[in-house]
């Protein structure tokens, strides 16, 4: 025969207590004894207890008493019952179903080994939501319920389950087992005391069961910070984490302890970093403090381990099976990334007590209904399909470029791109070094885009060529994807977005970029849709978007300074037009436009000093890559001239559709703005192409095209209306669709049939001949001569080909002049001591690639100090026979540079943190802890707000 003693522990829980007490008293299996404990409540909980149980059955304890201590205190005072006694533990915020106790006892009778039983816990507010059906813990001490967040109870987990632990809320435990295990550990006043107890019970050979027929509704008031915790000074999150770690480390055997220790030190550090990035420094602090608190008190841990020594090792295999399997960590990471992309906080997960109450996912209900696999979901996204189609088009068009690049050791280069050699670390060194030994030596600071490329190369496993190839050769699909993703908020009609993205990706500028090897414009083309998307949010006053915008603008500006000018002018116009309408727009604009200036400061000063460079982009500036007499019709048709550009009529459809969009009356504002951007971009393009020298009007035309595309695509949903109509309108709609899609289709067809040939090639050889590379001492250089158009171009390479960015370094003028004179003398064959001059600059080899011009060969052969090493159809190589002195790098005080680099790094991290998305919806305000008591009215107001929020959660 059983006897059941219910113990209800209350602490400031009057809000829930009434219902709890009613539920306890309404049990179908009447209770033999009831005891209420009031841990110094200030909200009248004690009074409620007394009313319900009678004054004799209520114990009042100090405010700081923990749950475990309270139960211990009751049982110490309560004499054992004659029969098999069960103790039913209840929180003040946990209301059991009337049949709960009956179901629990029935289950206990079925299994004589069962010592601890727990009910199925559901959410207090949303009563269908499952909270717990037994809890386990992962090897990193994380609580794991095995349930999805906000999983509804439809009986899917029902039955009696053998679990690692159950919550103390509604826990039914045999009193003899309680005494044998000496109950809940008072060292754990809150959180994970249940896990610890159940773990010990299992180690002692008892069973822990979860009985789904017994149901209790739990508010998780402490964990969700609905009330202040008095039993501990610490934040519940930190406490939760600390206790989780402590319980794990106290209960596992030694080998597992070492592993768990290692795992948690690394894991916690990483998590803290993630939290920092997610702008949750409090979480990061808690994470580290919890770990520190466990490791920092080794004696406490040792004591706890000593107490749990008995049977620990023998019980471990059985318990290990109940722990979360290691694979779950990966799944959690995937969930986290998915959640992060969906806009949730980056490190929320199912294990947290309050995960179920995240109200941020209300609108995702329909997505839960379609239970499709990830691949299927991706393939059904028009953006991904478009990306794949564009990628196939790109592969077909670049059929001549790619094989050489991928199969042999050919280098990508040509046009504005030097043959891509070197690795991420080379680029990084180029960026941070004070003195550049390359060429004739230079003290100028490397341009900032080198750092961006170094970062991209690091992502591409240190292979610069891979990063450059992906960005440059893949700029068509990347631009398409970027345009598709960026217009998500601007244009709701999906076919219009697809058309916009495809047209944007196949603009004449894009194919020209690939043919001309213009890495800078390629990056800007990919970033431009992102600018547009972020700009709409900046105009709306979003601070975070402004930081992101500033960061991306800095990247684009580093490659193509003209981008900043274009954006700044448009931003200025926007400030004039919207600044008065919306709050904070000016500040956001200042952030967006100021961030690039601050991040690129010294380099921008250099640029400003030579205004001609504003029109130029990164890389080589070759006059053969531009059309100096670009026709007016080309400019109006968005064709920037130069190699790789389709015929001028290819974009006619786009212009026609955009003009047609002007005729529609609705949303004329957007169309007008789009056309305004187009006309502005066009004007700048005309200026650039007429005054720019070697400048290419690609970027302003891409701006113009963006404006045009937005204007046209924004009105596209009207097509659907027209198509639904009959007769002439329907015909007109069809015509417009045909004209609109003619542009991307024609561009793709032209590109594929002509192929992406041009100055850019994938089969370039290393400019430094192998022999020269092998036989040069460190620092010795190879002088490369190339007669072209009556001029002899030369470049000095030190042991390796020039890196991207080295062409933008400036050497001291007098040294360059001296060297140029010596090279001219060498190429003329007039004798003299020119070779000695070159040798004193560290020139060991002279190479002439390709078929060597007979006059030049004669000139080089006539030099007594030069020895010919080889001469063939592929080039000639001469060696300086005499003494070669490598010029010593000048002693430089690079403190300013170092300081600036550190400052830039710091600023970058700051901007990254400010720009990176945090949780889109904040957790319910939990200021009770932080709010001092004297600010009670305010905190009450906040609590009210919090409640109001909760009330919106569908019941």
């Amino acid at each position, binding site marked *: 025969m059983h006897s059941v003693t219910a113990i209800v522990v209350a602490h400031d829980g009057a809000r829930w207590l009434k219902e709890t007490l009613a539920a306890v008293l309404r049990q179908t299996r009447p209770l033999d004894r009831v005891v209420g404990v009031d841990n110094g409540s200030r909200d009248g909980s004690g009074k409620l207890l007394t009313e319900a149980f009678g004054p004799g059955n209520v114990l009042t304890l100090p405010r700081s008493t923990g749950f475990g201590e309270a139960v211990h205190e009751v049982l110490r005072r309560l004499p054992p019952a004659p029969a098999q006694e069960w103790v039913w533990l209840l929180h003040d915020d946990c209301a059991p179903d009337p049949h709960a106790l009956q179901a629990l006892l029935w289950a206990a009778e079925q299994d004589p080994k069962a010592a601890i039983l727990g009910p199925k816990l559901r959410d207090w507010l949303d009563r269908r939501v499952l909270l717990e059906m037994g809890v386990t813990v992962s090897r990193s001490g994380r609580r794991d319920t095995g349930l999805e967040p906000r999983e509804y109870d439809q009986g899917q987990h029902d039955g009696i389950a053998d679990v690692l632990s159950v919550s103390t809320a509604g826990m039914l435990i045999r009193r003899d087992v309680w005494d044998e295990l000496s109950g809940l550990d008072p060292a754990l006043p809150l959180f994970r005391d249940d896990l610890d107890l159940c773990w010990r019970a299992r180690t002692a050979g008892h069973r822990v069961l979860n009985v789904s027929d017994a149901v209790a509704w739990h508010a998780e008031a402490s964990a969700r910070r609905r009330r202040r915790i008095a039993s501990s000074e610490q934040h519940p999150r930190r406490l939760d984490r600390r206790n989780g770690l402590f319980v794990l480390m106290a209960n596992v055997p030694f080998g597992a302890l070492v592993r768990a220790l290692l795992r948690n030190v690394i894991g916690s550090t990483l998590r803290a970093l993630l939290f920092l990035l997610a702008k949750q420094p409090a979480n990061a602090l808690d994470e580290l403090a919890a770990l520190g608190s466990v490791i920092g008190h080794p004696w406490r841990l040792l004591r706890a381990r000593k107490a749990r020594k008995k049977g620990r090792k023998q019980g471990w295999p059985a318990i290990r099976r109940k722990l979360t399997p290691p694979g779950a960590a990966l799944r959690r990471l995937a969930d986290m990334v998915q959640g992060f992309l969906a806009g949730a906080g980056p490190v929320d997960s199912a294990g947290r007590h309050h995960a179920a109450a995240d109200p941020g996912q209300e609108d995702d209900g329909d997505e839960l209904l379609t239970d499709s696999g990830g691949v299927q979901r991706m393939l059904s996204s028009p953006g991904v399909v478009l990306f794949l189609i564009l990628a196939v088009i790109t592969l077909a068009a670049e059929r001549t470029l790619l094989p050489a690049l991928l199969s042999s050791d050919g280098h990508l280069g040509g046009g504005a791109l030097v043959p891509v050699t070197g690795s991420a670390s080379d680029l990084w060194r180029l960026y941070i070094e004070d003195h550049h030994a390359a060429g004739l030596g230079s003290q100028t600071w490397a341009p900032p885009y080198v750092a961006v490329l170094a970062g991209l190369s690091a992502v591409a496993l240190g292979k610069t060529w891979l990063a450059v190839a992906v960005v440059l050769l893949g700029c068509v699909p990347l631009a398409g994807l970027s345009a598709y993703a960026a217009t998500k908020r601007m244009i709701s009609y999906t076919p219009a977005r697809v058309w916009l993205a495809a047209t944007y990706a196949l603009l004449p500028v894009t194919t020209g970029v690939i043919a001309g090897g213009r890495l800078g414009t390629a990056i800007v083309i990919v970033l431009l849709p992102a600018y547009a998307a972020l700009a709409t949010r900046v105009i709306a006053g979003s601070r975070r978007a402004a930081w992101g915008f500033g960061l991306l603008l800095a990247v684009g500006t580093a490659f193509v300074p003209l981008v900043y000018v274009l954006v700044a002018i448009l931003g200025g116009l926007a400030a004039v037009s919207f600044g008065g309408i919306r709050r904070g727009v000016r500040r956001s604009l200042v952030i967006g436009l100021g961030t690039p200036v601050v991040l690129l400061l010294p380099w921008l000063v250099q640029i400003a000093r030579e205004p001609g460079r504003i029109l130029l982009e990164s890389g080589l500036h070759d006059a053969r890559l531009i059309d100096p007499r670009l026709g007016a019709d080309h400019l109006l048709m968005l064709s920037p001239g130069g190699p790789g550009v389709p015929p001028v009529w290819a974009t006619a459809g786009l212009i026609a559709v955009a003009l047609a969009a002007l005729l529609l009356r609705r949303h004329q504002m957007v169309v007008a703005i789009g056309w305004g951007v187009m*006309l502005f971009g066009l004007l700048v393009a005309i200026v650039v192409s007429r005054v720019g020298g070697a400048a290419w009007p690609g970027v302003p035309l891409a701006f113009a095209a963006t404006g045009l595309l937005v204007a046209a695509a924004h009105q596209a949903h009207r097509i659907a209306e027209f198509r639904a109509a009959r007769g002439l309108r329907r015909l007109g709609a069809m015509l417009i669709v045909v004209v609109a899609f003619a542009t991307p289709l024609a561009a793709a067809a032209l590109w594929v049939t002509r192929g992406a040939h041009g100055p850019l090639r994938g089969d370039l050889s290393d400019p430094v001949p192998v022999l020269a590379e092998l036989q040069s001492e460190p620092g010795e250089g190879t002088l490369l001569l190339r007669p072209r158009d009556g001029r002899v171009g030369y470049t000095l390479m030190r042991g390796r080909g020039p890196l991207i960015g080295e062409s933008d370094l400036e050497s001291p003028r007098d040294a360059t002049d001296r060297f140029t004179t010596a090279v001219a003398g060498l190429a*003329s064959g007039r004798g003299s001591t020119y070779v000695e001059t070159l040798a004193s600059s560290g020139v060991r080899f002279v190479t002439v690639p390709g078929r060597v011009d007979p006059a030049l060969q004669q000139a080089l052969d006539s030099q007594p100090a030069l020895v010919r*090493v*080889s001469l063939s159809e592929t080039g000639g190589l001469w060696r300086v026979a005499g003494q070669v002195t490598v010029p010593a790098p000048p002693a430089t005080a690079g403190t300013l540079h170092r300081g600036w680099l550190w400052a830039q790094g710091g600023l970058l991290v700051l901007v990254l943190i400010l720009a990176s998305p945090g949780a889109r919806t904040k957790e319910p305000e939990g200021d009770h802890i932080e709010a001092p008591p004297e600010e009670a009215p305010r905190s009450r107001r906040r609590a009210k707000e919090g409640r109001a929020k909760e009330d919106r959660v569908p019941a």
Partner: protein
Amino acid sequence: MRRLIENRFGLLALVLVALGALYGVAFVSRPAPAAQARPQAVRAPVESVTAVCPAPSGSRVSVVTPADPERPETPGSATLSPIKAPAGKSGKGGDDVIDRPGLLWQREIAAGGGPLVVDATGSMAAGLESAQTARETSGTQRGLAGVRCVEPGAESWFVGPGPAAAEMTLYLANPDAAPANVSFMVYSGEGPVLSERGNGVVVKPGQHRVIRLRDLAPSPLIMALQVSTRSGRVAAAVKAVLGEGRGVDWLPAAAAPATRVVVPGIPGTAGQRELYVATPGDRDTSVRIKAVLKDGSYALKNKETIEVPAGSASSLDLSTGIGGQPAALVLESDVPIVAGLKITGTGVRQDVAFTAGAPSIDLGSVVADGRAEGKQTSRLVLSAPFAAATVEVRLVPTKGAAPDPVEVKLPAARTKELKLTPPKGSKGGFSVVVRPKPGSGPVYGGRVLDEGAGDGQMVTAQPLAMARIWALVPPTVDSPGAVLP
């Protein structure tokens, strides 16, 4: 205004007007097509020259640098020294130093000893010309034998009789600081000769080698010899000794293989003329021969062409065609060829001279050794095979003021022979400076030296070589884009 904006076509009209305006701006501002001005190379005087006289022992060495008022006066000197390793190459006491441009320097070198190196810098370098001329009146070496002292180079060609017809000796010298890896290729009448003993030799810095070509290829009656270096530079010269009473001379370096070769400098004296043509390629060819004579340029009767099989040499006797008249030969072929010509003097005991394909003397030419003592005659044979030209001929004496230059007009497709008379008061030899006037067509020429000895005419010849006065300094730019093709 408000009505315009609210009108359906208002915005369209505005945009079209703006587009039209932009089109207008772009159209008007379109620059006129600019002819790409090709940057011109700048003439600059040569600043250092090294030449090697291959075997000056018992010869007279002449060294001259013409003075030029156009050039700024810079200090400079030329040093004559026996070849030696570069370590000891610092003007020691025994060396001859010449530091006066505009005057001819001559010296008889005593017998014995190796090659001489002429090193010139500064104002002595621009146009430095040197030559060695030997005169023997008896023995196998009887005759006049002269050769230009040549700059070391990577490739030289010689065309003439083969080792079976004459004793051919190759002189190699390396005055540089790096070893020269020299290889030879002999093209005979029967095709290229592949030597069993290997056809390469390494000449170390400061070393010189004398190689009997009979050891390389014993059988050819005629040959073209290619001396090339895989690395380093070498000065090469070939001497042909035809035997007792049959003459001796050096083979001048022939112009590198080309589809059109001009063999200039054939004198108007009597005697045999034998043409040698070789093609190093792998295609048979038929070479068209045209003679440029005093009265015009035409193909020789029955000697219009000469067939040259691939990789071999052929010869053709032209004595009946051009014998007795000053001439130049223009040889044209579909594949690159090299050519040389043997001039035989008259008399019981014969002497030979050789000329060879030569480039035109656009920037002028200098001949170091000219003589007019006793029975010696110096002739200058100038040809303008393609277009009319005017040349200025100036003599440079050993001392004293130079006489006024003589202007010579050459009509197109004509050859002229000038007999050089030494300036009054000049003793010994003199040098000749030939410079085409601006606007002239290509000029080719040669200098022939003969001496009417009792037992037979002695003769030597050399085609005019372009003087190393000026070098063309190309415009040079530091451009990282040079790494791209």
